[in-house]
């Protein structure tokens, strides 16, 4: 009676060539393109991080010049935030959201393809700066003027950075419109707003945030470009401009961006924990409202990046930033309550989420500390901030991102990733994270500034930096079992069942991978968990039939 138990009809799939991938408008393939490209950028950004850590392992200049070092950390930050963490979320959204709402595709499939190619070429354009004589952009991923202006960054690499970031910004805006329209108009009959899976909710809210935030950075970049080439003087005090304006416009984008980079990943956690706890998500509506509250508050906290400028209202931005801890806390507590009195299976996706509950919590706590301006007077621009942001982006975004990869890999490819390699991956990343970033918190508290290519031996920072570098190498090594698992899985035949985990939402009601049109039929949607309902109904039907048989004989 349900799609779940329907025998998997394997029609010999037509061979998919390169041209099919280059011209596809299928949301599932675009999702895979996004996720693969995002991980490609992450591997490059990660390799750069390893060079940075090796350079900092000891005082003195060993590997790269100060000029190269500055290009490396600029491109590392830009790639990881704007070309990995964001597009990975968009990739999951592409691959999963239409399935979760029972749609056949996105509302605007060709616009969707355009978004992907803008993003991919944006990243390549940023990196192409390395090939130019002046080198890549070297003003930090925050691109603060006047350092990024015509006088202090005359290199073409800086312009390529502006162009690349502007392209990914436009890509994000187009993608956000597409997701909004898709979620509002393409839901299957019965899929009311308050039956939408939490991941879809987070994508909806993230799309709204993108529409508010991205135009601000686009304007900022346009002004910087005009400053650089047409003597605009927007950020040049000698022409009546203002360097603080750059920061306002940048962080008006940049702080909502932080939540754009975490809300979809909270959505993934909200999908994974209920499945492997065999319980419904605890406080679904509260989580929806917490997501909206985080998004709303995130529009009013941008100047907490500017506490040390002496140019902003400290109490206002402090209280707004502190308040975000409340809805974020609700999420953590509701996930824990979902596990409470559940029946927990420690699969690899679940292990990533459990790791997140431990690690992300410290990032949240240090975030509350940074929201207090007097504490920020010490911590701003030190390794404390570096540790904090990596704590939330690795312990939050990346842990949940890996949970999503292991969770949905069977759905996207029809193949399951090896659990044993996955466990090694989790263990290496948890240990690597602790080794890399606990020392950085201490270094920051001791006063080590960020973005320095070298530090004097007299500071006594050598031992902690060495430990941090070893940790970074553990993180790199931890990627090997993951890449091996992906490689092995892709060489096997696609034999994953429709619902390998005992899932709740509609993506598990179709084959793995789904047919081009996604669904042959949909189970009835009468709650937040249509696939769970169908499974229970099928189970009851089977028992009833058995009872009849036993009674009849």
């Amino acid at each position, binding site marked *: 009676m349900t799609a779940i138990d329907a025998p998997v009809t394997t029609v010999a799939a037509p061979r998919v060539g390169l041209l099919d991938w280059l011209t596809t408008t299928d949301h599932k393939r675009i999702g895979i393109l996004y996720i693969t490209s995002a991980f490609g950028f992450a591997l490059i950004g990660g390799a750069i991080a390893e060079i940075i850590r090796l350079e900092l392992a000891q005082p003195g200049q060993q590997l790269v010049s100060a000029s190269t070092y500055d290009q490396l950390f600029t491109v590392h930050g830009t790639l990881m935030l704007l070309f990995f963490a964001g597009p990975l979320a968009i990739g999951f959204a592409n691959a999963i959201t239409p399935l979760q709402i029972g749609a056949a595709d996105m509302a605007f499939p060709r616009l969707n393809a355009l978004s992907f190619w803008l993003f991919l070429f944006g990243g390549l354009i940023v990196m192409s700066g390395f090939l130019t004589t002046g080198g890549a952009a070297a003003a930090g991923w925050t691109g603060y003027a006047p350092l990024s202006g015509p006088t202090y960054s005359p290199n073409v690499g800086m312009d390529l950075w502006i162009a690349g970031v502007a392209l990914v910004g436009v890509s994000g805006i187009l993608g956000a419109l597409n997701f909004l329209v898709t979620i509002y108009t393409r839901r299957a009959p019965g899929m009311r707003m308050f039956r939408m899976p939490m991941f879809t909710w987070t994508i909806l809210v993230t799309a709204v945030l993108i529409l508010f935030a991205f135009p601000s950075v686009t304007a900022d970049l346009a002004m910087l470009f005009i400053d650089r080439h047409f003597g605009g003087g927007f950020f040049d005090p000698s022409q009546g401009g203002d360097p603080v304006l750059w920061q306002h416009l940048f962080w008006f984008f940049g702080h909502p961006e932080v939540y754009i980079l975490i809300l979809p990943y909270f959505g993934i956690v909200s999908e994974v924990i209920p499945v492997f706890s065999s319980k419904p998500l605890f406080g679904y509506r509260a989580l929806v409202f917490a997501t909206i509250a985080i998004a709303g508050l995130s529009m009013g906290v941008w100047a907490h990046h500017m506490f040390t400028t*002496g140019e902003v209202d*400290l109490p206002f931005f402090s*209280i707004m930033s502190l308040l975000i801890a409340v809805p974020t806390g609700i999420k953590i507590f509701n996930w824990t309550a979902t*596990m409470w009195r559940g029946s927990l299976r420690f699969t690899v996706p679940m292990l990533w989420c*459990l*790791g997140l509950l431990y690690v992300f919590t410290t990032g949240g706590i240090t975030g*509350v500390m940074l929201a207090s301006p007097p504490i920020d007077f010490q911590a701003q621009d030190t390794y404390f901030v570096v540790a904090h942001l990596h704590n939330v982006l690795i312990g939050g975004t990346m842990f949940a991102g890996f949970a999503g990869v292991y969770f949905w890999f069977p759905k996207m490819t029809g193949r399951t990733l090896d659990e044993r390699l996955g466990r090694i991956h989790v263990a290496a990343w948890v240990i690597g994270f602790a080794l890399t970033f606990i020392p950085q918190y201490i270094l920051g*508290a001791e006063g080590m500034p960020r973005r320095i290519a070298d530090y004097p031996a007299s500071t006594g920072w050598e031992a902690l930096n060495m430990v941090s570098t070893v940790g970074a190498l553990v993180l790199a090594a931890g990627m090997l079992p993951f890449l091996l698992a992906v490689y092995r899985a892709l060489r096997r035949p696609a034999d994953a069942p429709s619902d390998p985990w005992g899932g709740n939402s509609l993506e598990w009601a179709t084959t793995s991978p789904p047919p081009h049109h996604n669904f042959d039929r949909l189970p009835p949607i009468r709650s937040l968990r249509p696939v769970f309902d169908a499974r229970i109904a099928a189970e009851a039907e089977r028992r009833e039939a058995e009872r009849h048989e036993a009674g009849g004989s």
Partner: protein
Amino acid sequence: MRRHAIGGGWHPRRLIALGLGMLVVVSVAGCMPAPATTQAQDISNLYLVFLGGGVIVAAIVWGLVTWSIIRYRRRDDRLPAQTSGSLKIEAIWTLIPLVTVLVLFGLTVRTLEAVDTVNPGGVNLHVTAFRWQWQASYPDSGVTVTGTGGQPPVIVLPVDTPIHVTLESLDVNHAWFVPAFLFKRDAIPGHPSLFDIRITAPGDYPGACAEFCGIGHDQMLFTIRAVDAAQFNTWLADQAASGSAAP
């Protein structure tokens, strides 16, 4: 222990070890330098309150998660009770954090009032940041100290005296950071900035530029040398007489 087809045999002990490790994070983040100004003392006190609160919050979250991992791991195929929420308990974990952050905000505002005010009297110091050095001048006596390549400036200041710092930048954004003062302030071109410090203990305090400003950023160092008021006045008179520190 029964093994399931998917993910049955994993020992959550490793995660508990991680929990303990993370506890270390929060505790050791308290390794700030001993506060050397009255403002730094206030900041340090606030920091310890936040840190203590953070340790409590972390202990609660990790405790609940750890308990769930141990107590509720899958034992059989029975479906647990399908509890989907509780208004009362959710109200509790909304209100308690809300009250907590409001208290933390109150303490923040109180500390801000103490550290972010400019007091009358004392010594004026004018600090100018430029790529990649510092210049410190004492407008009351006309003395100027400028760092040169490889020779960061030593800025001599009196203890137990309010010092009004005016900070500005000639080119890009910099930041004046003295770890022992637990304080930094951005030097932004076109935006002279004012703040007060009152050093409590004599000694040499290393300082650095904290806002990335180009390839010489890591070389942009300075030292604050805090001496008692009499020594400071002697030093200032010597500098003014020798004229060696003329701008």
